[in-house]
């Protein structure tokens, strides 16, 4: 087996929380990411699913050092990049790109499309002079935008077009790994389909490895080879996309899938839903044992005692539940 492109080992991102303006005192620690291990093979797309506050965006940011890791390691192309000093990290950073949810917030409103796309090329010395213009037109064509619009500003584009610009900017440096954090959730259904097709096409064309973060499981299932499910900073299930989607083993994944409204009124009326009470606990004060046990319809007293590790439950399929054999 080839070596994974991205290797996360026991990754931890903890944020201290302070109270008080003058006399600051430590309130506690938010365990946004709490020991996540995950491999992404070259050319693979892994979908990372979870609800707000479960830590998936923090994980994405930790990989590219937008937030500091507090424990564990990040490996990329066989090197441990979490230990690299800043200049060495900057040298590999072009091969590691991030796309955000809201292209309006991630694009500078005072920069034209040309400026936005030319900047990374110039900063990393990939093109200069005439070459920049040619590379920018190529990039725009690549994502389905007419190059004649390159002197326009972000506000002159629709949401879908802006996301195309953000994608072009991420691809300008010919990355190996692209981490897409909810790239389509701000878009309308018909536009969302266009962007998903674009991502799928670029993935083939450029041989991209993709870590795709989304809360919409049907989108994740459509695009990913494997799905990883996060809850309160931990992975609770990991496996081939079809397996996780059609035969979920962790109670949380089951609840999540059954909660998605299906655009089919006949199925909606008949299907069973796993009802969850309450809301996720605060990552500032996570419950003892399995983080999901206070909401889990199958929970037993012993679920509150220890944190269950990910255990194998089929071909490449893992789940973290002590009642796995009964699930």
């Amino acid at each position: 087996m080839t070596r994974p492109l991205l290797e996360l080992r026991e990754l931890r991102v903890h944020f201290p929380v302070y109270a008080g303006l003058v006399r600051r005192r430590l309130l506690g620690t938010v365990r946004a990411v709490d020991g996540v291990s995950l491999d992404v093979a070259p050319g693979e797309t892994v979908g990372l699913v979870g609800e707000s506050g479960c830590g998936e965006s923090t994980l994405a940011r930790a990989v590219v050092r937008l937030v500091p890791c507090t424990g564990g390691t990040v490996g990329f192309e066989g090197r441990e990049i979490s230990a690299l000093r800043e200049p060495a990290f900057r040298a590999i950073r072009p091969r590691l790109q991030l796309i955000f949810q809201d292209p309006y917030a991630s694009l500078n409103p005072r920069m034209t499309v040309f400026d936005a796309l030319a900047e990374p090329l110039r900063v990393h010395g990939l093109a200069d002079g005439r070459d920049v213009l040619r590379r920018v037109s190529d990039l725009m064509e690549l994502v389905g935008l007419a190059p004649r619009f390159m002197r326009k500003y972000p506000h002159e584009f629709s949401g879908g077009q802006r996301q195309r610009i953000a994608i072009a900017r991420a691809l300008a440096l010919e990355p190996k790994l692209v981490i897409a954090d909810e790239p389509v959730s701000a878009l309308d259904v018909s536009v969302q389909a266009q962007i998903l097709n674009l991502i799928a096409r670029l993935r083939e064309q450029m041989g991209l490895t993709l870590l795709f973060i989304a809360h919409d499981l049907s989108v994740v299932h459509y695009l990913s080879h494997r799905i990883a499910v996060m809850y309160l900073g931990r992975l609770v299930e990991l496996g081939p996309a079809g397996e996780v989607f059609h035969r979920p083993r962790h109670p949380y994944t089951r609840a999540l899938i059954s909660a998605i409204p299906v655009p089919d009124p006949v199925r909606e009326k008949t299907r069973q839903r796993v009802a969850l009470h309450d809301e996720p606990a605060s990552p500032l004060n996570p419950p003892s044992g399995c983080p999901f046990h206070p909401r889990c319809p199958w929970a037993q007293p012993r679920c509150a005692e220890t944190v269950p590790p990910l255990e194998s439950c089929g071909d490449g399929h893992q789940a973290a539940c002590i009642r796995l054999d009964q699930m």
Partner: protein
Amino acid sequence: MPLLDVHELTTHFHTREGVVRAVNGVSFRVEPGETIGIVGESGSGKTVASLSLLGLIPAPPGRIENGTALFDGVDLLACGPKTLRSIRGRAISMIFQDPMTALNPFMRVGDQLMEPLQVHQGLSRREARTRVEEMLRLVGIQDGARNLSAWPHEFSGGMRQRVMIAMALITRPHLLIADEPTTALDVTIQAQILELLARLQRELGMAVILITHDLGVVARVCRRIYVMYAGQVMESAATEALFAQPRHPYTEALLQSLPSTHVKGEPLHTIPGLPPDLIAPIAGCPFAPRCASATDRCTRGAPTLRELVPGRATACFRVQDGEL
């Protein structure tokens, strides 16, 4: 007799750039106790239509150009602000997508909930307080007394939406307009809120207009659906019929673009192009430039919503003529 009968509602915004035709001759009705869905993508006019009914359009630049909206024998569009104020919050309530911006951040949750009772029903503080605690229990917020003195920012998104629902329902309205009530929430919380709305609707016997872009959500909770595009109703049908056999090319294209209707790996169907600019006058069918079945006629004349069979209407020439 319908509880609400909206006819030819037209709302335009007169801006410096030109007239934005946000809602263009929209008609729909709501029977007592039923849930209807108004579905559309951003800019389709679904929110403006519902705000128009309650007189909540900022004017200027907004102006209701035409139409009637009969609610319990009163025309909401003509009755004047005073009558409207007495209906709004008492007989018709509304909840919005983002409960944080809809709640007053400087007012304790309890005071905000008590306000409509004191304003509309003249209850004393103590009477209002009892009703509020009862209502909070109904929307699944236990420990009402403690939560009454909490501030909105202390609540999670799901809890805030529960507070919004409690506030909207506390006067026992006959009609609730819910504008994307679960869009900002996680799916497991969304499921809880949708279930809550359905239960309260049964218990209180009210009608609900659910405005959303999410076809899955309407499939779950609505009896009938109106599909909007560019300020017009494209199609209306009973939920099952709409999903089983859409009778407008836009609805069909919309359903086809959902990832869940595709086999993994096959490219998603997309709708080419963009929704029309609502400032430029639209001569024909607003969907024609993006429609795979459009003919010359579709760009020349504007089709109107016409009933095919009782309870099923479409604004497509070609479907009306039996060509599609």
